[in-house]
């Protein structure tokens, strides 16, 4: 067990920020750390806390040093504080300060804006762990259980990363915000997480995979835009977090892909060619493709909401002040100031969905969302390749951006997945064709039976093509603690 009285921060917390000699940060961390460990211990069922999990730990930012695999008990995971190496003479990439030297300290006039962005990012990290806390109990394999816990400990490390910034650069109110990150809790009545999508529960493994594919991808895009920040410590923190975020994308894409593969295999084995022969398909213990489409519709649209209003002055300010950039800002070939530019945004005018030009500065959220949609479409294309290969006639699609929205201009209307505006009545009538119904949820829940034998998988999901860290198929990714 971690010795909380004698934490040697340089050995137990892998870091490249000189933690042990930074008295101020050290004192704050020592105060915060026990609360974090309590949060973690209260979170995940006890027998998993005591199990040996084959996890990857980042011990340094060198490419060869941040993927160290070993069996660890999760409460003893070495949550590190690691920033991508400082780039000498790094310049602010965008906004009115474009071309100036990046800030190594918080500029006074942007202090509140920066703090808020860091707190929002920090709040999502523990939020998702809370949403996923009971999934271990129904893991379809030890391999998947390991992947879940890897995602969880890395979200935990990302919380550490944000807390470090709050301690290091934001003094007393930074410390208060760090405490609040542990006080708020996903789905709580009195102190919920800050963003809606992080208060929804993750009831089953297909939801988890969809969440890591779609919602964590929003996280990736937000990190990408913060990695452009003129505030250099934030940029360096986010750049390193992105290397870990890739694993979460992997869990989502392959998780959904393997779910589809199991369905295709079962259909072909039974000689079923009609993907809508739902009862027969479900009887085989796999999830039919139309239901997978409904799950996709739900998680994709919840994730679109995370990008906020299509036209936003907050986003314009964050860009203009050099706090938050666009996706791959440094690779975009323009003046990076956007003063006279426009950007196409879809909106609702007189009951019709129309495209209009708006000042590019105010459309920063929209632009990031468009990049997100492009990124998310790639994996859907690869899932469709699996379906094509199996010879079954079905295609998964991303629904129209107006479909099932709670935030932004489309929240005011109802639309079908093709983007046709429909009446409230029709929406109520047809909702269950497009989004998972209670019965769909009950069916999926009925499949969520744990499968804890090494190398074995639940009926509804196929084995992965490659093991983690090149391990063989029957590798015992989690040595379960049997109490």
């Amino acid at each position, binding site marked *: 067990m971690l010795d909380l009285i004698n934490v040697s921060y340089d050995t137990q917390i892998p870091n490249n920020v000189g933690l042990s000699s930074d008295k101020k940060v050290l004192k704050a961390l020592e105060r915060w750390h026990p609360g974090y460990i309590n949060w973690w211990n209260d979170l995940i069922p006890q027998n998993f806390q005591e199990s040996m999990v084959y996890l990857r730990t980042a011990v340094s930012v060198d490419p060869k040093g941040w993927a160290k695999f*070993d069996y660890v008990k999760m409460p003893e995971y070495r949550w590190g504080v690691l920033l991508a190496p400082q780039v000498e003479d790094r310049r602010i990439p965008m906004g009115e300060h474009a071309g100036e030297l990046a800030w190594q300290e918080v500029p006074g006039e942007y202090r509140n804006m920066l703090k808020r962005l860091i707190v929002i990012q920090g709040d999502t990290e523990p939020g998702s762990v809370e949403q996923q806390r009971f999934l271990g109990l129904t893991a379809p394999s030890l391999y998947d259980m390991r992947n879940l816990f890897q995602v969880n400990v890395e979200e935990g490390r990302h919380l550490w990363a944000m807390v470090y910034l709050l301690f290091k650069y934001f003094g007393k109110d930074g410390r208060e915000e760090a405490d609040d990150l542990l006080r708020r809790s996903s789905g709580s009545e009195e102190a919920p997480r800050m963003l809606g999508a992080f208060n929804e529960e993750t009831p089953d493994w297909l939801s988890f995979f969809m969440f890591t594919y779609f919602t964590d991808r929003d996280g990736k895009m937000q990190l990408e835009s913060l990695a452009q920040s003129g505030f250099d410590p934030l940029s360096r923190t986010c750049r390193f977090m992105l290397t870990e*975020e890739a694993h979460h994308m*992997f869990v989502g894409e392959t998780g959904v892909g393997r779910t589809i593969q199991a369905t295709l295999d079962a259909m072909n084995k039974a000689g079923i060619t009609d993907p809508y022969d739902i009862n027969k398909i479900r009887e085989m213990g796999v999830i039919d493709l139309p239901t997978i489409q409904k799950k996709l519709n739900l998680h994709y649209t919840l994730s679109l909401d995370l990008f906020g209003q299509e036209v936003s002055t907050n986003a314009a300010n964050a860009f203009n002040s050099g706090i938050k950039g666009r996706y791959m800002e440094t690779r975009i070939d323009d003046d990076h100031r956007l003063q006279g530019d426009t950007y196409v945004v879809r909106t609702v005018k007189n009951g019709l969905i129309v495209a209009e030009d708006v000042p590019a500065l105010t459309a920063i959220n929209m632009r990031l969302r468009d990049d997100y949609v492009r990124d998310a479409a790639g*994996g859907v294309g690869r899932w469709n390749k699996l379906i094509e290969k199996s010879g079954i006639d079905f295609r998964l699609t991303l629904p129209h951006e107006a479909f099932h929205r709670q935030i932004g201009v489309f929240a005011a209307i109802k639309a079908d997945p093709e983007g046709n505006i429909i009446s409230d009545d029709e929406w109520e009538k047809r909702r269950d064709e497009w989004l998972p119904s209670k019965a769909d949820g009950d069916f999926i829940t009925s499949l969520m039976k744990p499968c804890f034998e090494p190398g074995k998988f639940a009926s509804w999901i196929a084995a992965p093509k490659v093991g983690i*860290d*090149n391990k063989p198929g029957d590798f015992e990714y989690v040595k379960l603690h049997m109490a």
Partner: protein
Amino acid sequence: MNKPLKQHLIDPEICIRCYTCEMTCPVEAIVHNDDNVVVDASKCNFCMDCIPVCPTGSIDEWRVVAEPYPVDEQFGWDELPDQEDLGGSEADTGLEALDEDMAALLAEAHAGAGGKAKPPLSAAKPTVNLYTLGKPAVAKVTGIVPLTKDPGHDVRHIILDFAGQTMPVLEGQSIGIIPPGHDAEGRPLLPRLYSVSSPRDGERPNYNNLSLTVKREKGGVCSNYLCDLKVGDTVQVTGPFGATFLLPDDPEARLLMVCTGTGSAPMRGFTMRRQRTVGGRSGGMVMFFGARTPDALPYFGPLKKVPAALLEQHLVYSRATEAKEYVQDRMMAEEERVAELLADPKTHVYVCGLRGMEQGVEQAFVSIAESIGQPWGALKDAMREEGRYHVETY
């Protein structure tokens, strides 16, 4: 034809297009379009920085090619092309190591197999060339013990710890040790290859360490350097190397191991791997192990504790009594046992030791194979093609 090249590729069926490799690559050799992430062969310098950062396992793919696949062709792939059969020597067209010197050394060591070596079908996928002469790993000596009591035959068991560095090494693979000093032209000395004698999860399970079995050679620059190391010293390491002399993961596979002296190193790794995973429930292992005397036989003590159900041992001494006995003599004495193994398609043969042992062992195989009506040449070729016949001699 030009000399074949080793080309780094990414498996488009496994890759999730996260572009982490692209961001990590220090020479911008990795690029993507809307479909694929690919490596530009004209820029990749085999630094391997992209290998550990990949979350999927799609990145560690290699093909030996006469002409590298251009970027545009790779953009259009749905799956990786098969390895083309280029013929040629193992050094030129094998994937045992990416740098030429190491590939040449291993090809020479494997020459006794009589053709291009192939790994066992069920072997784990090896990582090669993660560390190079220009970018070596630094390991710390955490143990060094004499294995023999024969002063003329000083063999040491050396434990190297890699701390935070990734060193994914499989049983049967080798690592390079860079001896300190320079050659006459002031260049650093080339690494010397040593077979790892510990299993993949470490000399001690789940410690990031490995062991070597090193014999002090008279006038040997590297062997004397290694045998004189003290606990706490650091060593520069390259590798891992080797992609064929590997243990089948199939527990039903039967192993016939013939070795002399420090040729026992990979056999020790195989044995410990099986001991830690399947134990006596495996297809079994039979070892013919030769040395001058019991005092000169590495691991004589620990071997006695290995149960026969896991490892059937034939320890053979050439200087213990009047009658000199070599491994091939004992193989002949156990002709029926060896014949039964050779006839079984689950058997994998491993020969490792000094080059001088090859001829005698080969003759024993010829004679035993003939006794069951199988011409050894054809049987050997078939076994080698199936990844079931392996020779590493030096």
